[in-house]
Structures are given as C-alpha cells and as structure tokens.
C-alpha cells in the first residue's frame, strides 16, 4: 500500500543559492555567445553591455558559490555526507542508478534512490555534482576573475601559460558547464511529473510515495 509523505529536502539557503546560480549561469551563457561571436550575435545593446553583464553575472555565480560552500561546510556541516560518494555508491550505487536511467526507467520501474535530507542525491548525482561544484565551477570562476582584470594579475596569467591558454581553459570549462546544464535540466524533469523534482527546489518540500507494506503486497 502506497502512502504519500513530504520531506523537507532543500533548505532556504540552498534554494537561494540554486536559483541565483541558475540565473547567473544562464546570463553568462547568453552573454558569452555575443562576447565570442560579436559580429554575428547582437542580443544586447552593445558589446560593452554584454561584457559588463557577463562580468556581473560571473561575480553573482562566484558569490553564490561562496554562499553554497559556507552553508554546507560551516552551517549544516554536511558537505561530505551530501556530495562525497560512499564506497557503496561507487561499488553498487553508480551502476544501479545508470541501469535505471538507461534501461529500467523505460520499463516503468521506480527510481532506486529515495532521497532524504542527509542523502538527497543519488550516486550519479553525487559524482556529477562533486565534479561540477569542486572542480568545474571554481575553475571557471577563477579563470573568469583573472580575465576580468588581466593587468594586475598578469603574473598569474603567465603562470597558466598566457592569456590564450587562460581563455581556452575558461571557454572549454564553460562549454562543459553549459553541456551539464542541458543534462541537468532534462534529468530534473524525470520525476513522476515533469515538475515533480523542480518544485522542491522552489518550495523546499518533496513529495515521496512510501510503500507501507513492501513485503506484504501481492
């Protein structure tokens, strides 16, 4: 027998971070297209406006990253628990979750992962978010900060190998982040209804169906 229960999955600081991040990253992607292809793309009034907006959006993402880091590392102190895949996740969980996404989902099976506030991400999410939040976002932000003001930080630019190498790193990491965004948004619609996973990120509460007699049902 299935009963519905509500879990408070996404605390307010996390939701603020998430939507601030989303707004910032989308602005970064759109302005970046004009910045890289200015003779073809004219979405904003002029080139300078696109650059200034890109810089501001970059600072917003960097700020929201700091908010996220502070919350998980110092306030809830659950960063490692939430984001670091366990031994079981790596040995069994990853394969089980991949099997769900690539096969059993299409057969109509249920998601093998049931989120709790302490374990809200499935093993694939944990691995992906670990790479995104601990490697990709910090590196894109740092390279972006260096590019925002090249002259005073010239020695750091030279340490990377030069301006072009820095630009190449920033560009390719940003493309990877954007590619992740496509997958992330799509996977967010894989709940029972397309909004089932998106709504909790707005309200904080996720509706979960619990089988009260998992072994008794015939």
């Amino acid at each position: 027998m299935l009963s519905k229960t509500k879990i408070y999955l996404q605390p307010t600081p996390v939701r603020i971070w998430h939507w601030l991040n989303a707004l910032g990253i989308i602005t970064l992607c759109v302005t970046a297209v004009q910045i890289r292809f200015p003779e073809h793309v004219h979405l904003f009034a002029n080139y300078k406006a696109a650059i200034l907006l890109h810089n501001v959006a970059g600072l917003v993402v960097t700020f929201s990253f700091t908010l996220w880091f502070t919350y998980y590392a110092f306030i809830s102190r659950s960063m490692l628990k939430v984001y670091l895949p366990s031994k079981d996740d790596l040995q069994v969980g990853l394969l089980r979750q991949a099997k769900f996404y690539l096969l059993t989902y299409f057969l109509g099976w249920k998601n093998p992962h049931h989120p709790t506030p302490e374990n809200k991400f499935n093993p694939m999410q944990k691995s992906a978010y670990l790479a995104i939040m601990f490697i990709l976002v910090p590196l894109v932000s740092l390279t972006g900060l260096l590019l925002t003001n090249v002259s005073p930080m010239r020695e750091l630019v030279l340490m990377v190998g030069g301006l072009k190498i820095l630009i190449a790193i920033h560009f390719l990491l940003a493309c990877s982040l954007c590619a992740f965004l496509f997958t992330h948004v799509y996977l967010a619609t894989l709940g029972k209804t397309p909004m089932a996973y998106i709504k909790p990120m707005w309200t904080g509460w996720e509706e979960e169906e619990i089988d009260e007699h998992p072994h008794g049902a015939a």
Partner: protein
Amino acid sequence: MIMQTIHKILRAGPILLLLGLAPGMAFSMDSSDCMACHGEPDMVGEELVIEALGFDHTAHADVGCHACHATITEDHPDDGLTPSKAGCSECHDEIGEEYGASGHAENAGCSDCHNPHRALGPTAVSGHDMNLQCSACHERADMQTRHAEWLPQADLHISMLPCITCHSPVEDFVISLYIIKRQSETLFGQFKLASYDELAALAGDKPIQELVDTNADSYISLAELRMFNLDSENKQLRLQGMMTPEVVHHDFRAQDDRWDCSFCHASGPGAMQVSYLSLAERDGSFRRVAVEKGAVLDALYGTPDFYMVGSTRSTALNYVGLVILAGGMVMPIGHGTLRFLTRKNRRHEEK
C-alpha cells in the same frame, strides 16, 4: 598609387629644386661634411650633436642636411650666420594642414613630438615608442584614470595599443609582435620591450631575427612561433602583440566609432590575418619580419599573450566547444526520444 607618387614628387619640389641648384651654386659641402662635426659632441656640444646611428636611416638623411638647412655656406660656422631651418609643412604640407586644423596644434609644434633627425615612418617605430610621444604631455596615470571611467580594463588597453589607434582616423591595422624581456631573473620581474643589445646578447653569433626565425628564411611560420613560445630557454622572453596602424594621421581627435568596442572586437577573425614580428634594430628603429597569415588566431601557443576578445577566437576551439555542447544534448535528445516512445510503460503501476 601613381597619383600618390606624383603628389610626393610635387611635395618634394622645393627640396629637389634646391638640390638641382646646389651644383650651380658650386656648393661642395655635403651631409658627411656636416656630420664630421655634428656627429661629435666634443666639437659642437650636446645641443647640436646629431646621432649618426639614428639619423642615417631616416628619410631626412636621404635628402641631405641642405634640404632643410638651405642657407648654410661654405664658411659655416665661421661666417657667424645662424643656419635656416625649413618648416616641416614645406614638404609635409598635407600633414601640416591636417595637424593645423586639430586642437593639438595650439599646444605643440611638430618638433615637440618629432625629432627631425630621428624621424621614422610608422612601421619603423614600435607601438611603445609611439606612446612615449603622447605620454610626454599626457601623463599615463592620468590617462588611465580618465579612460577607466568608461573603458573596461583601461590599463590593459593603454599598455597594448598605440594611442593613435583610437585617437586618429586610421582604418588599416596589423598585429605587431614585439619581443619583451623580464628585467630581472626574479619570478615577478617586470617585462619590458627588449632592446637590440639585449636581443643581440641572447642571439650570440646569430642575427637576432633567428631567435624566432630559426630557419633564417625571413618568414616566421606558425611552427616557429610555437617553438619560440614553448622553448624553455626563452622563458625570460615573451611576444607581446599590439594592434598598430599602417599609416599615421595627424588629426588626433578621438574617433566616434572607437567609443564602441565593436570597432576592434567585432571586426572578426578575418581582420586579424596579418601580423609581423617587429625587431629592435641597432639604430633604435624597428624592422618587420612577415609572420604566417592568421598566426594570431592559433588556439594556444602561436601568440599565447595576444588575445583580442571576440576577434582572435580560435576556430579549432569553437569546434571542440561545439562537440562538448553536443555531448550535453545527448541525454535530452537521446533519452528524451526513448522516454517518449516508452511513455506507455510508465502509465501502469510501477514494478
């Protein structure tokens, strides 16, 4: 082209006339006679000395001292006469007219910016030296503050562009690559434009051009640029790129179209095809060596320190980026299609 040549001949008319009359006047003193005294500070003093090394390669040396100092006699300096000095606009009349109409003419004459005994064409002067003329009056720190009020990364723009790129109606630019050298062996020593002597010391027995042009064919290929930039022996040297004008105008008003970043940054990779390696010469001038077309658009090691956002993007990197983005669409498109096709399976009770 023919018209330009005719104009040049007409402009040089007075000089040619003087040169033509000179034999008739039985005037036997020539430039080498002048330099015999004026090349020696001990003989004429610091104020009247002409540095032969800098003067000999100028166009003014080609026309000779008498062209501008026409009243000099055989008895100079014993005749006690002060030699005449030709006005610049007697030959450079178009420039004189253009400059005279600009606001600068009220504040500075030609010789405030140009030493006629060292006057060189725009391609023989480094972008850094062009800016030295401006910064003699327009203090750099002040200019930086004023530009920073509206120009993003003003300090970067001011260091990497000749002022006349925006403050004159030039339309024709190339990328000039200069060798800059770290001024001390310390990690954070400042980079400055390498002098001829510094480069000669590094090149040893070879001509300095071969520091980059390793096969000595007077053409810098992309492979040679990469080799130079990746060579650990050159770690104290870097190539600094500047967008330099091919011709110079003397109307130094800020151009309306330069307030808009897109004049340079949206010109597209097509406008960034031509570049030169500009090498310091012994006489203080600069000599250009042609660089492979499109070298500054190389993704990484062609010109690692020269990047003009929007204009020098690499096509190869664009494709890599596109592949990454396409990878991100695999899940939404591939999985989404299968999801749509198997939607009936999820309408029943979950297993």
